[in-house]
């Protein structure tokens, strides 16, 4: 029997003009791994929430959603709680209790298990998920990745048959995200739990999934194996690819646009093997090109061209703590889009704090005469008003200009951020991407000459990332300097002016994106990893695709 069967399902939110879901039909068999993808706001979350009884949103629905043959809305509460697990986006908000072990036991307590039974189940879960070493810790001491893993383990303790995950990795850094996805894969493989997951990061999810569902504007436009999806979305050579094509993993996109429609490779390994066959005629790049080069630092920046100048900056959080920044030197030119890349906990965010003046370095110089504004990681940290337009106007509260001018400026910003249709909406009702836009708009109304961004692409779908890049590029063209801290290699490679590798409290290398990624061998884009041996200076998907089309 199908675990989930959706038949001709249509759903409309109260007061909404259009349906959120239109005529959706699909089956999910037992133990399948299904990836759900699509733009933000295309109805993914609405669809997933139909499958868990207590999360079904209010609204008008037609058709049916069946779990093991019975309508989800009529399931017994106990069955629904125990057999269908649901993991949400935000790791922080799902945790209820103060201790890791208590959180693990929460669901089992609800089901009324005895102390002994819970102890046994909790022990099993902690061992399976590798939680033993932090079993007795306070949840506030955990990292974001650990928190989301705890949420998952706490649901798995109830041994659900169906696991639904709504963009579970969107708030995690890439390393934690891939560890989380590996755990989901392990659960699916070892326990046979049916998994339905919505994701933006498809690079890894596609290699695991049995099938992928692609949604657009409340409809399912494709439901097939990941290998076939790419070819389908790329369309025939005569027509433009479907917009969703740009959300596909790099490897898939590169091969699909090179005309590979059958058995499209998904991983870099598969891609390399295929390329070896396809490019047997093409000579490989000389070995010297792959060696890391030592570049001369850009020391000739004149004073009036310099937006930010950091010299020999040392910083630590406490007297006996270790140095977070150790002799950091950094120069950013005016009108430059500068990206600081690096792993977790190497001091990227601390650098940002020192620049913005939130923290004072113990030694060294930080010189920046420009008017600064910083976009925090959590856009919610800025929201004070009940509608988006008021929210934007709030940014101008202290400005000495007339109310008409304020309204005009807020109006213009709504248009620039493409959120005019949301002017009356409450900031908290917006999706993650829209909140990010609103917060950015608010910051931009302050008309900063230097914009500091902390992980601006976190939780954004690939489509809005393109829009965001457009907005930021317009700003730098207008003379604004952008300093950005990010994990997002692909984004920085495609759009930044300068990329810097940050490690151990210091900048290790600064170069233009091309030279930067061509010089790295692990820390580089998927597209570059794929074709390094032949063309080490091709970094973005588009470059690799065009190059491939010229050689074959």
């Amino acid at each position, binding site marked *: 029997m199908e675990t989930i069967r959706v038949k001709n399902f249509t759903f409309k939110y109260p007061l909404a003009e259009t349906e959120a879901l239109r005529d959706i039909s699909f089956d999910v068999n037992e133990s399948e791994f299904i990836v759900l993808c699509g733009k933000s706001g295309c109805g993914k979350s609405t669809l997933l929430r139909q499958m868990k009884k207590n999360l079904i949103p209010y609204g008008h629905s037609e058709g049916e959603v069946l779990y093991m043959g019975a309508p989800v809305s009529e399931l017994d509460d106990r069955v629904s709680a125990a057999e269908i697990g649901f993991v949400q986006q935000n790791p922080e908000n799902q945790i209820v209790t103060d201790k890791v072990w208590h959180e693990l036991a929460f669901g089992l307590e609800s089901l009324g298990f005895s102390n002994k039974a819970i102890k046994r189940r*909790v022990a099993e879960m902690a061992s399976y998920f590798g939680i033993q070493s932090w079993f007795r810790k306070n949840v506030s001491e955990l990292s974001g990745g650990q928190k989301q893993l705890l949420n998952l383990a706490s649901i798995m303790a109830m041994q659900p048959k169906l696991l639904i995950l709504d963009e579970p990795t969107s708030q995690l850094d890439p390393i934690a995200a891939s560890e989380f996805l590996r755990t989901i894969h392990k659960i699916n493989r070892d326990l046979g739990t049916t998994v339905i997951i919505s994701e933006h990061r498809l690079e890894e999810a596609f290699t695991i999934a049995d099938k992928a569902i692609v949604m657009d504007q409340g409809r399912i436009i494709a439901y097939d194996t990941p290998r076939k999806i790419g070819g389908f979305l790329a369309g025939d050579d005569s027509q433009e690819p479907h917009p969703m094509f740009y959300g596909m993993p790099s490897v898939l996109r590169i091969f699909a646009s090179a005309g590979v429609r059958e058995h499209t490779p998904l991983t870099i390994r598969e891609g390399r093997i295929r390329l070896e066959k396809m490019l047997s005629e093409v000579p490989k790049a000389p070995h010297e090109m792959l060696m890391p080069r030592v570049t001369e630092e850009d020391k000739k920046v004149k004073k009036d061209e310099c937006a930010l100048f950091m010299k020999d900056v040392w910083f630590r959080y406490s007297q006996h703590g270790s140095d977070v920044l150790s002799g950091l030197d950094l120069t950013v030119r005016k009108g430059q889009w500068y990206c600081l890349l690096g792993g977790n906990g190497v001091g990227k965010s601390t650098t940002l704090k020192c620049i913005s003046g939130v923290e004072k370095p113990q030694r060294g110089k930080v010189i920046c005469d420009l008017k600064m504004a910083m976009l925090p990681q959590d856009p919610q940290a800025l929201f004070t008003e009940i509608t988006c337009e008021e929210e934007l106007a709030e940014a101008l509260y202290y400005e000495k200009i007339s109310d008409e001018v304020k309204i005009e400026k807020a109006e213009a910003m709504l248009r620039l951020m493409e959120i005019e249709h949301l002017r009356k909406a409450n900031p908290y009702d917006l999706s993650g991407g829209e909140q990010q836009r609103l917060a950015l708009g608010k910051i931009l109304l302050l008309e900063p000459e230097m914009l500091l961004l902390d992980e601006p692409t976190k939780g954004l779908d690939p489509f809005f990332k393109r829009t965001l890049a457009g907005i930021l590029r317009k700003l730098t063209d207008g003379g604004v300097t952008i300093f950005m801290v990010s994990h997002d290699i692909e984004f920085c490679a495609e759009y930044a002016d300068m990329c810097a590798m940050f490690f151990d409290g210091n900048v290790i290398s600064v170069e233009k994106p091309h030279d930067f990624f061509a010089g790295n061998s692990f820390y580089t884009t998927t597209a570059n990893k794929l074709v390094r041996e032949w063309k080490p200076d091709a970094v973005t998907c588009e470059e690799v695709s065009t190059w491939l089309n010229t050689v074959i």
Partner: protein
Amino acid sequence: MITRDGLGEDTEFARFHPLVSFMYFALAIGITMFSMSVIFLSVTFVCSWIYSVLLKGVAGAKENLIFTVSTLVIMALINTFFTHNGATVLFYINNNRITMEAFVYGICAAVMLVSVIIWFSCFNVIMTADKLIYLFGKAAPVLGLTMSMIFRFIPLLKNRFKAISMGQRGMGREKAATFTGKARQLTKETSILIAWSLESSIESADSMEARGYGLRGRTSFNLFKLSERDILMLAVMAVLGGICIYGCVTGITGMYYYPEIEWPKADLATALTAACYAVLLLLPAAVDIIGEIRWKRYA
């Protein structure tokens, strides 16, 4: 045995079941509050000092000393100058009798207050949040869960508030110099915190319900195990505590200060009760010291 920072919350006695620790403090504090006899006051005062120095070390002792001396002086003075009962007049001020009884009573009441407070400071060290949550959860599962959620939310709100302040500084809203400016900024930050937390609590509620919160027959899980030595300890404390409570009821632990001080009798019953009381109060300290010695030998 006396260390700079004390043994802290990881002592041998703290490893007993929470019921044991709870019963100990209930008896120690309860009996202290009902005994005004100088014998019993000295016993509880000395024992509370011993235990607190053991737990909190030299740093804790300094704090205790300052607190003890100041309370003693203030209470003795207040009682001497404002209470005029008592037969033994020392001298007169403005026709007001200053008596020896009032002075002694002031000192003794101060000793009791200081002892109770020192016992509570030890309670604070030993009874960690999870033990309290367990005990409350035993009384009512909802109460235990609520406490656990509160302990979860305190650090969460702190971090959020930090993020908000940083966000505001990132917008160039520096800390204003004027009082009204400061107040306005603080109000704004607080209102953001409240809105953010309320919105996110909707998700928490969803996550609770998704994991079956609200089904009938909820249980309360804990990691504590009532072992034989816990039961033995409970029994010993029950016997010793029972004798002391009997003493309270029959008035052995009390004494009269007015109109004339009636010093407690040195009979067998008093000696026996006081001995039981001392043994009861010194139990944890003894357990801890034995634990430390054993560990040293083992290592």
